[in-house]
């Protein structure tokens, strides 16, 4: 059973557009939702994270929108840049679960 699902699997946008990456989860006890980005042949790095006490978290061009009732969240990247091209992983953990669960990732390509 896939605990964390991401869509789309891949996404292509033009420079300047807004990219929207989706994530949903199963376990209602999850209390921490980080997004990691990973460039080819590099390790994942934390991009932005949210806890369920908030329904929105913003950091520059990156915003997480969180819907606790529907167990969904999305990452919006405004004014997308070619340097944003990477694989984005949604993860979830918490609620007494020591095991972070990653989604399968969304591969984002931003064309100049």
């Amino acid at each position, binding site marked *: 059973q896939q605990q964390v699902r991401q869509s789309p699997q891949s996404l292509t946008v033009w420079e300047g557009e807004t990219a929207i990456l989706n994530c949903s989860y199963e376990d209602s006890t999850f*209390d*921490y939702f*980080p997004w*990691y980005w990973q460039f080819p042949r*590099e*390790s*994942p*790095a*934390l991009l932005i*994270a949210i806890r369920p006490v908030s329904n929105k978290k913003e950091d520059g061009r990156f915003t997480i929108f969180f819907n606790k009732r529907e167990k969904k969240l999305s990452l919006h990247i405004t004014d997308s840049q070619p340097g944003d091209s990477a694989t984005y*992983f949604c993860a979830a*953990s*918490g609620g007494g*679960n*020591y*095991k*972070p*669960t*990653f*989604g*399968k*990732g969304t591969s984002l390509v931003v064309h100049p």
Partner: protein
Amino acid sequence: GPKVLQIPSHQIIDMGQMVTLNCDPVSNHLYFYWYKQILGQQMEFLVNFYNGKVMEKSKLFKDQFSVERPDGSYFTLKIQPTALEDSAVYFCASSTLWSSYEQYFGPGTRLTVL
């Protein structure tokens, strides 16, 4: 920022041999993790470790796998014996507290089993 180091960066071994992957976590971190990533696929949790014990492990953490951190030295993942399907990049991560906090990932060890 804080850095997790992994040694070696690449290891090539013959099937059936033993391999030890080494991780030097961030100095004040208490929780340590191993993940497996096959090229182009998602990160798969293997195991996490705290206070000298395995806290949780996934079904990917086969009996041939073991972890330890003797006397605060490297946090190691040992595979004995290795199998062809163990070929992947193995990432080590560490965090100050348990999984609800930011994890810092090392650069990975690319393991190739022939």
